């Protein structure tokens, strides 16, 4: 660490040798390092480490950024203890956390709410977080998918849709978000249970609803069975799906050509943008595999925190809270790296910068939700092809 700071001091040219002696800024991160969400936690850590080295290569006004990581164990209670330790003992003004939506909310309600500490969740997609404007998140809520699907189906010229969703929180909330966003009529709107052996009654009801566009908010195994039943019943509707209904397992278990033309909306990193490509190649050379969007979200959390620290008047929760949204919002100059944003902040105000993340444009809204960046996939020759990007 010392070595790195020294390097920055030299790169930062002569004169300010005193700055390398500044104390590092310390922020906290609650991550799922163990437990059922630990796969996400691992990816988060890789994204965080890459972001830290990007930030510390430049430095924040001559100081380093430090992230103290605590484990939530993927559970609410573990997340609360971790956050309490970070906020009350370490005194961090900025907390990145957590992975699961339930854990993030538990931390917010038990530890953060009522203090001026800024909480930014790296991987929560649950719709409930939208109701807590003080709780920011980097990954867009699932409802952006529903809005996007409504737009796409409308643009394809359908005014009637048959909708079936998996009978749980995920399916129900996404289906509700869809019907809210959809202007046309809903000819069929019903749930189905998971792991049924037969979905033929669902399929025949969707068919008798006479809608030509069928939307599926369900999981791969269930959707695979449904596609087979549609095929063997000889129906030929236009298929649409949420991201959970997409995957190799569906392709493997359905007949060739049975889904051609189907459109699916999946949350995606802006894979065509230069900053994402740089991030991906840095990630690949470091970890020997391609990054997932979960690593990209964690990366942007750290960059966002660093920018807020640089833009704020003081290293306190209240000061950070004032600028944390500003630095990624439109109207400022669009930049894609920490270094470029840092240059502007050096002699400008927080609203002069619009940081474009490797996970999307960010642009937190009044509820603390980012703009969703989504990719539209179309099934062509029985494989998924990206046809478009949308942000909503």
């Amino acid at each position, binding site marked *: 660490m010392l070595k790195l700071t020294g390097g920055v001091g030299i790169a930062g040219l002569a004169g300010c040798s005193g700055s390398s002696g500044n104390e590092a800024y310390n922020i906290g991160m609650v991550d799922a390092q163990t437990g059922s969400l630990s796969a996400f936690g691992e990816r988060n850590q890789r994204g965080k480490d890459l972001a830290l080295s990007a930030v510390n290569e430049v430095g924040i006004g001559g100081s380093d950024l430090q992230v103290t990581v605590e484990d939530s164990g993927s559970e609410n209670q573990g997340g609360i203890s971790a956050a309490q330790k970070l906020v009350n003992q370490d005194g961090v003004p900025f907390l990145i956390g957590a992975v699961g939506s339930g854990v993030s909310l538990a931390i917010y309600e038990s530890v953060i709410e009522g203090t001026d500490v800024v909480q930014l969740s790296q991987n929560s997609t649950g719709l409930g977080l939208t109701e807590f404007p003080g709780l920011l998140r980097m990954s867009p809520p699932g409802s952006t998918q529903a809005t996007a699907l409504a737009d796409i189906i409308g643009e394809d010229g359908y005014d009637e849709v048959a909708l079936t969703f998996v009978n749980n929180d995920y399916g129900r909330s996404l289906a509700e978000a869809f019907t809210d966003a959809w202007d046309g009529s809903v000819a069929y709107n019903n749930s189905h249970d998971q792991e049924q052996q037969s979905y033929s009654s669902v399929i025949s009801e969707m068919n008798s609803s006479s809608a030509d566009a069928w939307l599926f908010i369900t999981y791969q195994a269930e959707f695979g069975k449904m596609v087979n039943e549609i095929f063997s019943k*000889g129906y030929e509707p236009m298929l649409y799906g949420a991201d959970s209904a997409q995957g190799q397992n569906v392709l493997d278990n359905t007949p060739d050509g049975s889904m051609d033309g189907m459109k699916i909306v999946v949350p995606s990193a802006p894979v065509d943008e230069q900053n994402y490509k740089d991030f991906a190649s840095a990630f690949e050379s470091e970890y020997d595999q391609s990054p997932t969007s979960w690593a990209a979200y964690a990366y942007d959390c750290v960059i966002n925190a660093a920018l807020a620290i640089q833009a704020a008047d003081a290293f306190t929760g209240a000061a950070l809270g004032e600028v944390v949204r500003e630095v990624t919002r439109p109207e400022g100059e669009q930049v894609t790296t920490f270094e470029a944003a840092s240059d502007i902040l050096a002699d400008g105000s927080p609203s002069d910068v619009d940081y474009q993340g490797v996970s999307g444009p960010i642009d937190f809204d009044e509820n603390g939700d980012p703009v969703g960046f989504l990719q539209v996939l179309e099934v062509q020759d029985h494989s998924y092809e990206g046809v478009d990007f949308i942000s909503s």
Partner: protein
Amino acid sequence: MVLDLLASGLVFSSIIVLGSIGLSLVYSIADFANFAHGDTMTIGAYTSLVTFGAVGGLGVTVLGLPLGFFVALLAGIGVAAFVAVVTEKLVYDGMDLDSIGLLIASIGLAFIYRAVVQLGFGAQSTRYGIGALRPIEALLPYGVRVTQHDVAIVLSAAVLVTGLHVLLQYSDLGRKMRAMADNPDLARVSGIRTDRVKLWTWIIGAGLAGAGGAFLGLYSQLTPRMGFNLLLLIFAAVILGGIGSVYGAMLGGFLIGMINQLTPLLSNVGIPIGIEYADAIAFVIMVVVLLFRPNGIAGEAS
């Protein structure tokens, strides 16, 4: 619409019937509710998957199914029966337990079967390497949308059920099985080797379950939980028909499968009960029947 639903019901019933018979047979002879029965179906399905992968299509095609699938089906029946016999010899036979103890033991065995399948094949779903078919053209004018595979499932189930009927009614083994189901002690003192009859019961019951599982894989897809997920419906069928009665199980399986698939009719005639309650409706009917006939439709009045 109605004809189509009836056709779907017939296909689904065929699979439930194959599962129900075995459960009821084992209950009547071994005297406990075998919770590992659903996973015996899974074993049949995965054995067929492996066998079909090994032998391939073998050229000839019957009803859209290559000959190799029927070979795989026989292998599924054989292995399911073999596993059941080994389990009976190694586990149930050596246990000095009442029917509740055996029931609990069978729950444990269900987990073991499923875990072994999952170890070997993973938790992901898969299908046989048999191309899916479009509905039969000739039936489309009647609104019936079934594939040749569906017809094959119904016909094969009919052959197996008829075979079982002939066996029970006209063979020496069948008479002994019926005698033992009626009164095991009396059967033993009149010189029937009850151990041997019990073994055959396991073979027939698990064999039919294996066939049911193989067809379930063809009808839907293969997952390690496929049999267990169906077990509740099979229990409903067996209890509805009259537990311990083979013919009751056939009738119960047929009714439960039909009711399950005919649920869309309810909303067609204006009753606001959605298809997500299909299983619940089957169980409500089961409860109502039991209120009036506590031993099931075909069960003897007590």
